[in-house]
């Protein structure tokens, strides 16, 4: 959505309400659509509005610009007795209409709060000299810094008051972490930041190797499973790791259309060949071999079949598969075993292509099978079954 060519912030428009003049713009850092006479007449209702819109975030879109404001009214019978006992002002951000207004909400509200406090404490906004001397340059500086850094500013407004604003990108909720998911780093991480992380993360982050699943990490680090999951969700949110399915030589994968990207993009190819070499190798593998191997995953072949077929000894197939899944070149084809047998008796050999239940008829197994059959209703794939402890009863494939 956001276009890189557009500035983050066009301008800040500071307006107030005067009993003689009505609403007027006191200062704006740049001319915008909203400063035009006619437009302003129309929007002044929002800018210095009725009491019932006080402290509400108001976003207004005209053409390709958006105005975000949070009107403030300060009531004081002593101070503003010449001004109907109140003082109304609004410091609005003018941004491109494509931008997400929610990103700016915190900053707009915070700026309003700063100005309000300054006004209550030291008449910052009603004293013309102060306003002229400090407010104007401060607003200009805020706009300049935010546009420069793209997200934050730290500007000295008046005496010891420093305004720190930050635009918050809205990120998607992290997905829920299943016990069978494997965390994998999606970027190189800076280990010097490790000490700043929380204890839980410090404990589990070393176990992330792209092969161990969450359940295993919890066991290896002797940590409670739910805490590990929470730590993983946190890392996902901060875009440190992503989740991939468990690697196994019995997995199937299929190529995705994203492969085309790899085919045309040289930096991605480089990243791939650097990553998938066996550890300790003195030379990187050839892209041709990697690409052939990736394309050999055709939904039907197991990883072991592909490895045997390609005979590319210098490619670490574990790394290749997990990397490609992480990058989205490959997609795991999941295995769902569904029991089609709806009768109450479960001892018989219910056959059918999806029915992968072991055909052992032992009495000892029957109890497990009861529950296993309930689990095989199309909602649990082989990974989650394995994590529930049914792995060994379930591994025989149709072969």
């Amino acid at each position: 959505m956001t276009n890189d060519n557009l500035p983050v912030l066009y301008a800040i428009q500071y307006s107030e309400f005067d009993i003689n003049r009505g609403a007027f713009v006191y200062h704006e850092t740049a001319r915008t659509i909203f400063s035009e006479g006619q437009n302003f007449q129309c929007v002044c209702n929002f800018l210095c509005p009725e009491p019932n819109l006080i402290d509400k975030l108001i976003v207004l879109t005209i053409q390709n610009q958006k105005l975000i404001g949070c009107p403030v009214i300060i009531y004081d019978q002593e101070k503003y007795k010449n001004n109907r006992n109140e003082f109304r002002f609004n410091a609005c951000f003018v941004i491109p209409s494509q931008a997400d207004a929610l990103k700016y909400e915190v900053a707009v509200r915070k700026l309003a709060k700063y100005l309000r406090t300054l006004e209550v404490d030291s008449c910052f906004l009603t004293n013309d000299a102060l306003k002229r001397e400090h407010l104007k340059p401060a607003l200009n500086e805020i706009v300049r810094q935010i546009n420069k850094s793209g997200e934050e500013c730290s500007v000295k407004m008046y005496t010891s008051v420093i305004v720190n604003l930050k635009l918050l990108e809205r990120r998607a909720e992290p997905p829920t972490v299943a016990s069978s998911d494997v965390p994998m780093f999606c970027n190189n991480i800076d280990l010097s930041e490790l000490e700043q992380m929380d204890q839980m993360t410090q404990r589990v982050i070393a176990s992330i190797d792209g092969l161990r699943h969450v359940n295993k990490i919890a066991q290896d680090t002797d940590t409670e499973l739910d805490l590990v999951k929470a730590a993983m969700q946190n890392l996902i949110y901060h875009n440190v790791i992503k989740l991939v399915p468990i690697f196994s030589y019995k997995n199937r994968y299929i190529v995705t259309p994203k492969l085309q990207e790899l085919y045309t993009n040289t930096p991605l190819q480089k990243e791939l060949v650097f990553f998938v070499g066996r550890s300790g190798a003195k030379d990187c593998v050839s892209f041709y071999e990697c690409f052939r191997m990736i394309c050999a995953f055709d939904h039907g072949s197991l990883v072991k079949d592909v490895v045997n077929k390609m005979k590319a000894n210098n490619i670490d197939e574990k790394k290749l598969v997990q990397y490609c899944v992480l990058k989205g070149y490959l997609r795991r084809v999941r295995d769902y075993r569904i029991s089609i047998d709806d009768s109450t008796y479960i001892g018989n050999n219910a056959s059918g292509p999806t029915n992968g239940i072991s055909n052992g008829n032992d009495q000892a197994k029957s109890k497990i099978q009861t529950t296993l059959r309930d689990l095989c209703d199309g909602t649990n794939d082989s990974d989650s079954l394995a994590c529930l402890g049914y792995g060994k009863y379930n591994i025989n494939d149709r072969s």
Partner: protein
Amino acid sequence: MARIELEKDLIAILLVVESAHDKSRVLYKYEEIKTYKQLQEPTSFYTPYAVVIAKDFDPPSVKEEDASRSTFLNFDDTTLAILTTPYSYGSHVEVQVDDVIFVGHTLLLEGNPNLKSFAIFFALRAIAKASVILSYQDMSKRIGTAIRCEERRASYLNQEYLKLISVIQQHEAEPNDPLNRLPNEENTRERDQKDNNKEIYIIMAEQSPLAATLRQIYMDLQVSGEINISINNWLNVSCCLPHRSVPINCPLETDYFFNVLSNAVDYLKPYYGLLLVIDPLVLLASLPTDSSQTLVTLIKTVRSSHSFSSLSLDTGIQLSQIYSLTAHLLFWGRAKIIYPIVEDNIYIISPDADLSKRGSLSKMYHETFQNTLNYPTLQEALAEYSDAIAFHDHVPRIEDENEKHERHQCVEWLLRHRLLVQVHTYFYLLLPNDDRHNFKDEFRKLRLPPSRAPLRRYPHSTEGFGSLSKPEQFHLSSENIDIRGNTSSINGFENNMASSPMPSALSYGSTHNSKSADTIRTSNNTNHEDVFASGSVSSSTTGISNRISLHYLPQITQALPNERAEYRQLLASAIKDAKEQHVVDFLRLIKYLDGTYHLEEIASLENISRLQILTVLENFQSIVISALHPDSNPILQI
């Protein structure tokens, strides 16, 4: 479709007018309060794809979703009137207050004694996607334009305005004698006011057809996302919200598919086909009386095994017209774009298909296919597609026409519900020795800093590499080759010799000298690697000189005029052993070998059969890699 979900984003519908002598005011609003009643079940967030929810993160609560509704309830009519004040006519209005967003399209009324302008506003949740907001705006514009037409024809709005205003005035006159009330009853009074307000809107809907129409619009949008109403019993208005017409299990982002839907014609290809999502007879019955006759013809003739081009031939409708009609059907969620169902197709189960036995799809399947013997349950039907094999390979036994028909219907049903995805064969041309993919230098620079352990074995390693003696250099490179694996080591000593001057970070001087010196030797080297890679080609080619190996170069230059000369040479040496006819065919296809065209697409573009293409490409297995994956065209996923 199966899972009916109420429109979450829509909070209320408002009719706002600006009268000639008054400020603007809200004439009518409709918000459904009934649905707001707390249906608080014990919140168990069960999804089939998650095992446990981590404790730290609270699931998004029901309360949060209704937060904007309660924000809206707190606005009184004056506030609403201020918020919806027109500030520009004939353009979109979008105002957001906290978590409620108002969208509408203000229309100017000329020559009306009472009214200056009016607008239909929708109050939405502010977290609604940009495309959703856009489609509501569009809807407001359509309804508004229809009302304006009626106003011009029969001063409809004016009549309705007078009706509504009289209800309001009457209402205001009745309970508004605040003298009777004590100041401490303020709260109860407010509540009474609100109840009164609710009543007044009910009365309005009874007395004014326009108010009733607006209420109808709100309800229709909530339930189906489509409206089909007539304004003043005269003008028909029908439009739909595309994000509602596309089923929930569409994997695309709302904003993205809205964009795709709006420009659907650009995404259509002549070899795609059309699959109606609902019964054609029902669809025909639902069309308005003045609908296009071409559309009727199209719906009657469409078959899932026909492509657009054959449809065009059958019906005599131009392809461009078929495209726009298809785009229309897509927008309304009445059809789906597929690759025509033919016996060669390969289907796999969609990764997000709901396989659960107790799911609604399972039940629907059961109801639809009660009489089939072959696949009594959805799970069994889907199991057929567990392996990516061609459609005609599914049933080895000879089947009669009836069974075939049944199977066809089953596939249609599965496709319609997005349970199957079709995969195609794509081809990638990739030369084993293309130096654009050669990252060995960089790798070595990165991984082997000059002072690494193996180098220290040679005392003069740090400075002496420029004037490196021959045996030492050879030693190093052969070590490298061993690690590179059997590929080159099988090629034997001769090849090692050839590849020894390969640029390496360890031997700067020699690299620079040898690199420019011989292209001949490098290409010689590549020859050998080719022999190995292609495998099928006999090894008798050793010793063939460079000039012969490049004898296809002119043709290649003709086929790939924009490629680099080195690449063309590599390609020429790679295909030097193929037969002339094969090379001609291959060069004809070469522009499709970048992974963006699938087999069927190439066949239809070049007008040759699939088999022919496969035969041609079989001869070039070493440089053409095939991959099986779904078509990435987003229109197929809608």
